[in-house]
């Protein structure tokens, strides 16, 4: 689904955001991307939906070389990727319905079709009854669920989220995480950037760790909290069965070119 080959990203000011990042995420996998602030998580996500262009290396998303897509074709790539942000990015003056139906409108669907897909997407996130509400009338968790519904409305094969629980308290965060797991169970590939170690620990799954722009960890973890119907849908990479997640900020070995596992992680295997 996603393949990075020795990807580097240097911003015009000279700042090296990513360096020699190589990994592969198969279709249907649930992956966390973690690292300290400034490690390059957001840049990596932006490269996937071509908000940024890599300075080196190649990126394949669903078999398409993202780096070489002409500018005019970028919108068509983005229609196959759902994106969720920390601050929800809902438009306050628009209703929930209007917020989630941007893509159907762009595609020229009639109102009836828009209502149908909006209802389906909102039902998946448990907000079908708030179709006509405005974002400010919703709680933070509900707003994020609306943002997720917007990302899901085109039934994307890939959903990426940048700190989706960063603005939420622990209970709401857990609700959102459960929603992501449910979406993943239906076959959508998920890549979630977070620096919240508790969340990762609780959910488990595969974890990619960035430090100073380098991929320094690629682990598969077992979650500490069993989820209803939760079965591993991923192949173990490294360190499967680890019970704890270390603090990426205190890692040694940042800047290692090859993914070498989570330094400092007590390998349970």
């Amino acid at each position, binding site marked *: 689904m996603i393949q990075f080959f020795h990807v580097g990203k240097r911003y015009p000011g000279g700042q090296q955001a990513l360096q020699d990042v190589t990994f592969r995420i198969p279709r249907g996998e649930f992956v966390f991307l973690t690292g300290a602030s400034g490690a390059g998580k957001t840049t990596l996500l932006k490269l996937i939906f071509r908000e940024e262009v890599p300075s080196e290396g190649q990126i394949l998303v669903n078999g398409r070389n993202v780096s070489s897509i002409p500018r005019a074709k970028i919108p068509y790539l983005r229609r196959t990727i759902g994106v969720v942000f920390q601050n929800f*990015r809902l438009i306050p003056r628009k209703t929930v319905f209007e917020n989630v139906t941007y893509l159907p409108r*762009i595609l020229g669907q009639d109102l009836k079709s828009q209502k149908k897909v909006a209802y389906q997407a909102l039902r998946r996130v448990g907000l079908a009854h708030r179709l006509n509400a405005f974002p400010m009338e919703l709680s933070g968790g509900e707003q994020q669920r609306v943002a997720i519904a917007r990302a899901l409305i085109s039934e994307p094969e890939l959903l990426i989220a940048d700190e989706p629980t960063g*603005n939420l308290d622990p209970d709401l965060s857990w609700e959102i995480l459960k929603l992501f797991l449910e979406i993943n169970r239906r076959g959508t590939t998920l890549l979630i950037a977070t620096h919240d170690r508790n969340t990762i620990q609780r959910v488990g799954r595969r974890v990619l760790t960035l430090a100073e722009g380098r991929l320094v960890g690629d682990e598969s973890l077992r979650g500490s909290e069993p989820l209803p119907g939760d079965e591993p849908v991923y192949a173990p990479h490294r360190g499967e069965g680890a019970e704890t997640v270390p603090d990426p900020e205190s890692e040694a070995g940042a800047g290692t070119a090859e993914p070498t596992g989570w330094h400092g992680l007590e390998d349970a295997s």
Partner: protein
Amino acid sequence: MTFLQALVYFAREAWLNLVRSWKVSLLAVLTIAVSLFLGGVFLLAATNLSARVSQWSTEAKLLVYLDAEALDAERTALEELAREPSWVIGVESVSAEEAQERFRRQLPGLADLVEDLPASLEVGYRLEAATDPGFAAWVERLRQAPASGSVDDDRDWIAQLRTTIRLARMVGLILGAVLLGAAVFTIASVIRLTAYLYRDEIAIMRLVGATEFFIRGPFWVEGFFQGLLGGLVALGGLWGFYRLVLQGSSDPSLLQSLLSVRFLTAGEAVAVVLLGGLAGLVGAAVSLRRELLTPRAETPGPVTA
């Protein structure tokens, strides 16, 4: 989405933007209206003067004032000389009494000041003949004829009027261009401001896969609408100016009577409105630089249920 669907969507979004930010939109509309109105006044002046000159050109006259002491034979010879060339349309003999009566009728306030107007021959001719090399010689022969007192020719006056029309057109064009430039700048600023206000929404649209055409379309149409509205307001203002100022007076001045021959033709009126629309479109197009449409910085903070 078909092109037609896109246009309908652009029009709806543009209209909503106009209504939502009606104050700045009004500013843009009024700016373009003032520009087009002032340009239109010069256009109106130029077209009316042209029409008046065309009217006069078909009835250009040369007045030969007769010597009061001339003999009848000399008068007859003069009249024959006047009728001789092919460019002469007609010759009318005006007696001293008739001349006095005409003067009294046309300028009643000055009637008492003038007495004993001379008899004259009014020679109508085609104005285009005035450039004929034989024309000046013919006028000179009329002037030298024994029965001739003096000769008064429209050519100089019409030439001066034509120069005035050219000047009015030039001033109108320059002033119109400058004002239109200002209008384009104003509309560009308004569209830029609107785009800036909506940059979050634009970012979302870009994120979910909207093309640049789809993102910019509503702003182009908004600029076009503003320009069209400005053009319509200007046209209304011109109509009011024409009816109330130029035609409204019961005792029109020379300038008023010169400029009140006709209003703009349908084609000219449509051109004024479309020029406004075009100015708006240009303003919108130049204002939408990509960096203006980027989202504002994220401001994370905890949100709880």
